[in-house]
């Protein structure tokens, strides 16, 4: 057991913290959000320059060969600053799919483009009727002479509106919930038959509904094996949970800090409201939730590369519930302790609140994973 960070990891954390502290203030973020894309191409360039976009990729592709802990450290900082850029979608989600299932040719072609900041990706798996069921895929891929034809629609695809390439899951055989018949493909965002409707999510990040109408792709667009998509999707989702858990930890840290500050300075009835013992204890509960959530986020990071399937799946369920509940508790109380100001768009607390809400409803919610854990009690 060892909680130490390497010197490289400390350096990484510090550099990201410094960059965001300087350039990603709450005010700056408002500006980024107002840009057409809903985020800042300039910051994306900074991330590339700093090596963040290549963090988890092999050095052979220009990456840095980092692991889940490195991603965790970066995402914690992103959670503090509420970073809007398509890092999760590109580097973590689609990036994991490529790392695990991509052919040498695919990796050589795409990863360096990601690392350099030239290419953004999205992971298009969820569908409107699927909710959190990873095997519920109705989008279909039909074999054609020289490739595949995709039909169907994907929903709430994170940063799907700006993605140059989209990792798409499609059914190549089996019934609606059949795990074995799911296959992954790489589709160009601008391919004929692809329609994207971008929109903002409640937390200010972007997503898209994407429909595929007889989209023709070549055999080289196949990602991994035919019918082999499901286990890859599971690993991608786990990488997403781990990364986003770390973001929530960063957000909880900030919410707690900002709330403590408010409690210390806000005067009412002639004294700081933080002198109320009830609010002190509520803050203590927030602190404890934050720390428990941090532990669970570490667990998730540690499990990303765990080889034992049962162990990994179970721990991700524990972690998702733990971070989700901690986030809900901390964010609700951060608003409550602020009172009216916490309810306004102008103030930063509400933005953290919504990012945490977004996490809880991504990749399966608390009830979904409690169900999974309950299934194992016997």
């Amino acid at each position: 057991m060892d909680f130490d960070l390497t010197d490289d990891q400390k350096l990484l954390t510090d550099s990201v913290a410094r960059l965001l502290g300087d350039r990603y203030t709450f005010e700056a973020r408002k500006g980024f959000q107002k840009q057409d894309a809903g985020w800042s191409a300039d910051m994306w360039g900074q991330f590339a320059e700093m090596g963040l976009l290549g963090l988890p990729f092999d050095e052979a592709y220009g990456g840095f060969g980092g692991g889940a802990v490195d991603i965790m450290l970066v995402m914690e900082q992103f959670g503090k600053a509420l970073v809007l850029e398509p890092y999760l979608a590109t580097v973590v989600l689609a990036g994991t799919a490529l790392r695990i299932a991509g052919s040498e040719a695919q990796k050589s072609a795409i990863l360096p483009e990601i690392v350099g900041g030239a290419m953004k990706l999205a992971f298009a798996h969820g569908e409107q009727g699927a909710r959190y069921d990873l095997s519920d895929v109705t989008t279909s891929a039909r074999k054609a002479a020289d490739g595949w034809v995709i039909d169907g629609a994907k929903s709430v695809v994170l940063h799907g509106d700006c993605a140059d390439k989209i990792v798409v899951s499609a059914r190549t055989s089996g019934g609606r919930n059949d795990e074995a018949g799911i296959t992954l493909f790489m589709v160009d965002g601008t391919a004929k038959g692809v329609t994207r409707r971008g929109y903002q999510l409640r937390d200010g990040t972007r997503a898209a509904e994407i429909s595929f109408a007889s989209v023709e792709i070549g055999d080289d667009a196949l990602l991994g094996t035919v019918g082999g998509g499901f286990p890859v999707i599971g690993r991608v989702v786990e990488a997403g949970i781990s990364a986003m858990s770390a973001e929530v930890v960063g957000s909880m840290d900030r919410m707690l800090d900002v709330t403590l500050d408010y409690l210390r300075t806000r005067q009412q009835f002639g004294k700081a409201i933080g002198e109320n013992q009830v609010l002190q204890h509520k803050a203590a509960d927030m602190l404890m939730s934050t720390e428990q959530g941090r532990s669970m986020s570490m667990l998730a990071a540690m499990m990303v590369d765990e080889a034992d399937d049962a162990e990994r799946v179970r721990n991700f369920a524990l972690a998702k519930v733990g971070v989700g509940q901690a986030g809900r508790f901390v964010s609700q109380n951060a608003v409550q302790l602020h009172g009216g100001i916490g309810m306004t768009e102008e103030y930063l607390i509400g933005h953290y609140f919504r990012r945490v809400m977004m996490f809880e409803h991504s990749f399966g919610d608390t009830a979904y994973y409690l169900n999974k854990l309950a299934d194992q009690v016997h």
Partner: protein
Amino acid sequence: MDLRFTAEEIAWRDEVRAFIDAELDPALRERMRVGFGPTKQETIDWQRKLNKKGWACPGWPTEWGGATWTPVQRLIFNEAIQSAPAPDLQGFNITMLGPVLAHFGTPEQKAYFLPRAANLDDWWCQGFSEPGAGSDLASLKTAAKREGDFYIVNGQKIWTSTAHMADWIFALVRTDPNARKKQEGISFLLIDMKTPGITVRPIISIDGSHHLNEVFFDDVKVPVHQRVYEENRGWDVAKYLLGNERSGIARLGKSRANLEFAVDTARQVRSGGAPLVEDRGFRHRVAQIEVDIKALELTQMRVIAAASKKSDGKPDPFSSLLKIKGTELLQATSELIMDTGGPMAMPIWASELHALGNEPIAPEWAGYMAAPYLMLRAASIYGGTNEIQRNILNKAVLRL
């Protein structure tokens, strides 16, 4: 002792429901069912229909259009409105200003303002809160300096709900900055929002909606005859206003409507290969909320029955219980709605759903599943935070 409604009370409930069924625009009702609010014009139209029926201002003295309802009838009326759902009575006009004017107003003030308020000819808003005051309302700073027949008002109000659509504002202002206690030296003014010097700045809430505002007063001239009650005794007026009309504070009808909406959506949403409504975890959550709703429903009736026996005019401290438990239910039910929506609740697309003509990009319900959760976080904050309510319970009942 009999907790059931009497035959007369059931007949009354049926009468109210029948009226709503007959008079409320079905399209508005459906929009409200899924969480949307009525427009200003819709609220006005509805209020006028109620006014025609004699139901616009039930709590007022009968000479000004009030009703002779029992507290139970009042409760039944409120719950029927909330459950329908139909637009609430415009609170600033009906539950706040009206009783105050009827009690403290001059004959001229009553004759002019009351009928207009009942008919929503004037839309009123409330200017109490100020930046820096929060729950410590009496520490307000907006100044009104007497100059002849006018007050010159300078200062700022905040959290002013619907100020951007209001014709008038009733405001607490400081007329004596040197008063011994901060509660003294405050006056209660009626101010026309069209008076020069008033600026309204919107505050957008975290659900993206615009209900709240800041209102700035810059040398605003207000005729002295628009002051209610004596100069420097506005705090008495405010206390009377705040103690008034606690019936419906629990907003149980709204929580019930929320729960219904969640369950209804859960029938349409699939989870694990079956409708979400069949999931045991979901069902247990609903069952727990049903228990809590039932308990509060009965407690509310007890509080109302007790209130109808006493007539000291003081607010019942148990209205704090109704507020706390009522807002907990509003929050629990709105959380359930959001969780039911799941990923489909995360986009901001309520307004975009139909933007593309006949081709909505998501199921209709999806647009409304997160907003109530966000908006109702304020329920435990406004009208005295739930922490303040517990302080009240302690002072008034527990005496620790």
